[in-house]
């Protein structure tokens, strides 16, 4: 039976349960609602919950375990010769069967065709059985709750209790996401470090991620040293900061201290438009407009500028980050108490002297925090560097050369066909772990600094 039909049926039954529960609530007090502990709709909801929730839980468990159990059953039935093969080969066979089941591959091997038919047959049986079990559960749960409806039955308290459980579960999604990120990245990284020593990865000066098809191949062993990637990332982010910090900070100072309110109401949202533009657009701009412009400019003064220079990627990334720096600095500058400014004016200081000698020193921790956040944003930025920075890992500090970054390498390693046991793909997860840790540390420091700073003036 079709899954969505089953799901709709369960939900329909729950709706029916609501209706009957509500009717019975009216019936047990023969229409005198004030004799009920809760409003009639709560009795309906309680019945519906008992009808639907157990069935939905069983359904998700069933669907979670169904494929692995059925795969085992199918493998049992495979011909002897296909079953007793190394694990990896067996996995290939299972994959073939899956593809045949999904109809994406017209298998020419009769054994696989047969296995796929068996699988389909099993699945039909399993889904039918599931539908029966679910409907039974619905009926049982619903009627049990329906029977319990009585004038002093505390339906509202129970419904509210289950609602708050739902709320708690939703708020834990964020925690689960973090755990999921850490586990998924860590798990694959550990497998990577089993093949490549940790010290080689952390301190190696060469990056050429490839794995040998044969042992005697030229350049058989890839090099997985992340130092060139790290320097490339720092170079690009450094250029971005050189663009973003002065422009962002000065814009924020102008907007919050000098600008007439008309300019402020237009300038601030316009500046924030820069943050809303998708990064892929910046990447396109960097690759198609800025990089050729810089190359021609370099050629006209006799400088050799690579067409995928770190400068182009960094400068465009800087433009993207301007609004981050400016809006965060704007917040911290506004948090400096007016009394401090007034004191400075009273001593005869001009506005710019006040800003330079009073406001900026007072706001410095907050500004440092916002710059740290901006750096973490720059390090994690992907599309601009994928489209505008190079692929070759060079250990250089020359902004006119092409460099590569951590994020670029993650993308190049994982886009396209991949097998999950070569160090090449696993390296991407190790890089992801490094990226996650760097940005996490930067964020924690930055958030801490900003919070400490806010407390100072509250």
């Amino acid at each position, binding site marked *: 039976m079709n899954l969505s039909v089953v799901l709709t049926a369960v939900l329909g039954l729950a709706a029916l349960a609501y209706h009957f529960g509500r009717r019975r609530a009216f019936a047990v007090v023969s229409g005198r609602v004030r004799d009920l502990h809760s409003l009639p709709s709560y009795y309906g909801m309680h019945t519906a919950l008992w009808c639907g929730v157990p069935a939905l839980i069983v359904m998700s468990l069933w669907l979670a375990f169904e494929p692995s159990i059925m795969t085992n059953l199918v493998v049992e039935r495979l011909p002897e010769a296909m079953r007793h093969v190394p694990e990896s080969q067996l996995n290939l066979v299972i994959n073939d069967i899956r593809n045949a089941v999904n109809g994406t591959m017209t298998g020419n091997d009769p054994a696989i065709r047969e296995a796929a038919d068996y699988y389909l047959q099993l699945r039909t049986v399993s889904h039918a059985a599931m539908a029966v079990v679910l409907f039974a559960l619905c009926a049982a749960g619903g009627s049990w709750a329906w029977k319990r409806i009585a004038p002093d039955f505390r339906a509202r308290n129970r419904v509210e209790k289950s609602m708050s459980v739902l709320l708690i579960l939703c708020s834990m999604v964020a925690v689960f996401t973090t755990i999921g990120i850490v586990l998924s990245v860590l798990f694959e990284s550990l497998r990577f470090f089993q093949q490549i020593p940790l010290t080689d990865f952390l301190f190696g000066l060469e990056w050429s991620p490839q794995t040998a098809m044969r042992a005697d191949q030229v350049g058989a062993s890839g090099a997985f040293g992340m130092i060139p990637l790290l320097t490339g990332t720092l170079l690009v982010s450094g250029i971005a900061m050189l663009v973003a910090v002065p422009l962002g900070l000065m814009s924020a100072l102008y907007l919050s201290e000098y600008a007439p309110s008309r300019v402020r109401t237009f300038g601030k949202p316009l500046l924030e438009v820069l943050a809303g533009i*998708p990064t892929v657009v910046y990447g396109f701009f960097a690759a198609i407009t800025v990089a050729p412009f810089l190359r021609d400019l370099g050629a006209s003064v006799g400088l050799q500028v690579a067409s995928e220079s770190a400068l182009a990627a960094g400068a465009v990334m800087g433009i993207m980050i301007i609004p981050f720096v400016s809006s965060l600095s704007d917040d911290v500058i506004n948090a400096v108490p007016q009394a401090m400014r007034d004191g400075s004016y009273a001593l005869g200081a*001009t*506005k710019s*002297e006040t800003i330079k000698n009073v406001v900026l020193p007072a706001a410095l921790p907050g500004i440092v925090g916002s710059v740290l956040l901006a750096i973490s944003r720059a390090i*994690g*930025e992907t599309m601009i560097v994928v489209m505008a920075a190079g692929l070759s890992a060079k250990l250089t500090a020359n902004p006119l050369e092409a460099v590569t970054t951590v994020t670029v390498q*993650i993308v190049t390693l994982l886009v396209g066909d991949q097998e999950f046991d070569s160090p090449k793909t696993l390296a991407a997860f190790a890089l*992801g772990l490094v990226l996650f840790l760097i940005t996490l540390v930067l964020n924690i420091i930055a958030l801490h600094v900003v919070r400490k700073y806010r407390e100072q003036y509250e």
Partner: protein
Amino acid sequence: MNNATSPKGIYAIAPERRLGGAAHTALVQRRKAAEKRFRYYGLGALVVSLMFLVLLFASIIAKGWTAFEQTYLRLDVDFATDVLVPDGDRSEQALSSANYPALVKNAIWAAFPDVTSRGEKRQLQDLVSSGASFELRNIVMNDPSVIGTQRSVWVPATAFVDSLIKGQMDRSLPESERKLSDLQISWVDHLLSNGHIEKRFNTMLFTDGDSRDPELAGIGGAIMGSLYTMLVTLLLSFPIGVAAAIYLEEFAPRNRWTDLIEVNINNLAAVPSIVYGLLGLAVFINFLGLPRSSPLVGGLVLTLMTLPVVIIASRAALTSVPPSIREAALGMGASKMQTITHHVLPLAMPGMLTGAIIGMARALGETAPLLMIGMVAFIVDVPKSLTDPATALPVQIYLWASSPERAFVERTSAAILVLLAFMVLMNALAVVLRKRFERRW
């Protein structure tokens, strides 16, 4: 009455440094100049930043607006019976696999009867896009009665002819460096002079899927992919985000556990998007075995990414509802849950929706995590369900941006304009919502 009161201090200042003295005036002028300079630095920084914005838009609009037009050729097609139904079989299947390219060839050759050599005929053929035969097939499939008649049909020209007509190809270049030969250019000019070439609004750009031929490539498939992805994201992230915000803001006790959740949410908001892609790849695809490249997985990954944004915005919306509303409801005997669902939530809803829309606009432009879960494949078909392989609009932009054909630059810019239009629309909706329902307490 002694010397202490004598204004000795004032007389100690040299006359030129006194108020109005030469040195003092100079100092004041210097300070005023510094003040002015600083102010101009600030204004300059703002202007430069906004100039970048203008430059970005100008360069993309300048490159992209021509893609909204496409060059079409008029062909007098002879739907010859002996070509289409050589064996008299007029079944649907036979018609759909008939030799339409031959019709196109015959038609373009017929337009220039004096071209006879094989090589020149081939060059002539190259003026017409390979999409022309699909067009003819559609005509025949819709109305089989055209077989055996003659009819003039407008079909798309190749990207090279298109760029020649739009003036993007430099005619003064030597022939070997041009994509069109002198002969081809003379044919195009001839067709242009008798009105057999014209530019029309490019509907294929919006309806078709991707293609290797620039003139046939469209963003229809990518838009549908984005739409499905956003649907999943909206349906998951909004309810979960609002529920989480309600719990954290209204119910959660202040303890280490809720502090942890809070720190978590703030950190998640700053995790690089590509890391979410790694999570999606490892968990949704490898562990749970969901289909690769599907909008379902894309939507799930983007949900996790937008969730912090939605939660933070929803919490802000909840805090802006004054406590007196809650107290009044509680005072009337409502339970805490009733207070929230009946009174606080409806009042906070506009703010929550605004936050959700802004989060969705950001998710719409996100590319990197979608690359990780394989939504970068070359997909011609427009996706029809949540589990079909698909691309999204920003990924399509990335794909086109990295393809070498010159004609794709124009389409990439056009796709960017469409993406930006969607984002502007969503943000405008958020602003309208905020303005319309904003309440001052």
